[in-house]
């Protein structure tokens, strides 16, 4: 599961990755024509909308791609840098940058690109940006109130608007397509081209159909967490879903068995109850943990049987269904939940006058278990929730 840094790619190798990504970034920007200020500002005077086309195409491709990665569980979005929102700082900073764009003719990334091919104005621009940072640093007491006001955390746009991720992505794609169309009209007008902005040539048909496909594809990657949580709301579906179960006796036997190494109890009770008392070999889990990179390394361990426990079986079932839908194997649930376990094993009342040999065995086993397991629980120092060492990466500028 991504991000690959720091598990698969170490932090030092990441610098080499940065260099390679930078080379590709620079080459793409230069090939697109971002190395000349005349082309860049064309966007604001209507004679050249290259920047708008490249920028928005890249934005929507990346947006849908990241949605796809998250949908297939290839990336843990909790570890991905989401730019923080300081509302007024973002707006005023953006306006200042906009002013800088029409005065200076570059933005920082494109200025580096232009400087690399020898544009003197770009080298001066970088010098200016350098000074700008120093001005900000020295005048920090002045800027700080604005810089730190209205901190909204790291919200996503669709959460702020209270809409689904898919609808928002769809709106962004449609917005981009309309912008491309409008840009072509303006561009032709300013440059005195009389041909219609969209003609029935294979090129335009291709671009328009790819655009429409992108807009539709905004809906093929629904947010997995919401979809699965909705799925398990349906009680009859949950009851009919095939889930492997483990009897209370088997669990009791495995808990007591010293030689047992396969058992992993995944406990979905609230943290309070878990820390109060929990079975040996158990780990506290929450619904969110199922989607996260570090906790679910535990579930991927081979040769282990993961028994999901909670107070009632319905809860266990729901979690087990979500886990199976996420692709986890060897998941079992405890029959009747921990409530049944407590009632039938820990507070076992021997059957009086057992009628057959099974009942005799049951009496014998459970009487033994009800003595042994409370001691094990007492001695078990609960490990607490899965420890998450990885933090969100710090990105941005």
């Amino acid at each position, binding site marked *: 599961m991504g991000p690959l840094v720091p598990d698969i790619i170490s932090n030092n190798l990441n610098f080499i990755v940065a*260099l390679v990504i930078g080379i*590709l970034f620079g080459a793409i920007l230069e*090939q697109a024509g971002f190395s000349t200020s005349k082309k860049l500002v064309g966007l604001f005077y209507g004679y050249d909308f290259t920047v708008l086309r490249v920028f928005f195409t890249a934005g929507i491709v990346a*947006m849908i791609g990241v949605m796809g990665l998250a949908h297939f569980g290839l990336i843990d979005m909790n570890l991905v*840098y989401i730019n923080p929102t300081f509302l007024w700082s973002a707006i005023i900073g*953006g*306006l200042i940058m906009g002013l800088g764009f029409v005065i200076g003719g570059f933005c920082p990334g494109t200025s*580096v690109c232009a400087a690399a091919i020898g544009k003197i104005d770009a080298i001066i621009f970088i010098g200016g940006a350098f000074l700008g940072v120093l001005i900000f640093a020295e005048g920090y007491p002045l800027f700080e109130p604005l810089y730190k006001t209205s901190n909204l955390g790291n919200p996503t746009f669709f959460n702020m608007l209270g809409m689904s991720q898919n609808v*928002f992505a769809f709106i962004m794609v449609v917005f981009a397509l309309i912008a491309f169309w409008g840009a072509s009209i303006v561009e032709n007008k300013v440059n005195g081209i009389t041909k219609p902005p969209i003609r029935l040539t294979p090129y335009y048909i291709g671009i328009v159909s790819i655009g429409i496909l992108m807009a539709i594809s905004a809906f093929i990657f629904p947010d997995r967490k919401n979809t699965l949580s909705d799925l398990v709301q349906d009680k009859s579906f949950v009851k009919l879903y095939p889930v492997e179960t483990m009897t209370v006796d088997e669990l009791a036997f495995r808990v007591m068995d010293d030689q047992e190494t396969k058992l992993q109890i995944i406990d979905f009770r609230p943290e309070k109850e878990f820390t109060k008392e929990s079975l040996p070999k158990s780990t506290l889990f929450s619904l969110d943990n199922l989607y996260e990179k570090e906790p679910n390394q535990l579930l991927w361990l081979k040769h282990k049987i993961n028994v999901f426990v909670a107070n009632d079986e319905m809860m266990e079932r729901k979690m087990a269904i979500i886990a199976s839908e996420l692709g986890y194997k060897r998941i079992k649930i405890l029959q009747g939940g921990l409530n049944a376990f407590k009632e039938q094993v820990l507070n076992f009342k021997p059957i009086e006058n057992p009628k057959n040999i099974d009942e005799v065995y049951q009496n014998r086993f459970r009487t033994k278990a009800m003595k042994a397991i409370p001691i094990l629980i007492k001695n078990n120092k609960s490990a607490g929730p899965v420890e998450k060492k990885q933090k969100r990466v710090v990105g941005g500028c």
Partner: protein
Amino acid sequence: MEESKYMNPYLAGVLLGLLLIATIYITGRGLGASGAIKSYAVTTVETIAPAHTESTKFYKEYAEEHPGTSPLLNWLVFEVTGVLIGAFLSGLISNRLDFKLEKGPRTTTKIRVAGALIGGMLWGIGSQLGRGCTSGAALSGMAVMSFGGIITMFAIFAGAYAFAYFFRKFWI
């Protein structure tokens, strides 16, 4: 030899988008640019006036956020070094390497130099307030649908369009 034509903008956009997806998948963060300039600025001040950095709040906060190593041992510094190399190679292949100062047809070299310097300064200040520039806040913010990133993006475009009229003589 003549300069090669530029790449089709939609194709370039798709390539840039794919690069951004790969970047987020591998590193958990997006692309950026202004952060590297900040790292160089902080390093310069640290080298010239170490006492000053120890007593000034901005540098102290920077040191707290980036503990330990030198500000130059930073992901964005490596990435921007890559941008320089990549753009240079691309310019070399397409015959666009040339020392020149570009300016609008109705403006003087002096004004262009002053404009580039002041424009750069505004970006230096603005990108600190916006916590990123067109790459770090706007583009990467759009990829992860960050509220702040997209707001900054619209503010950059809104600002540029709002002020474009007053500086039209610079460009057209």
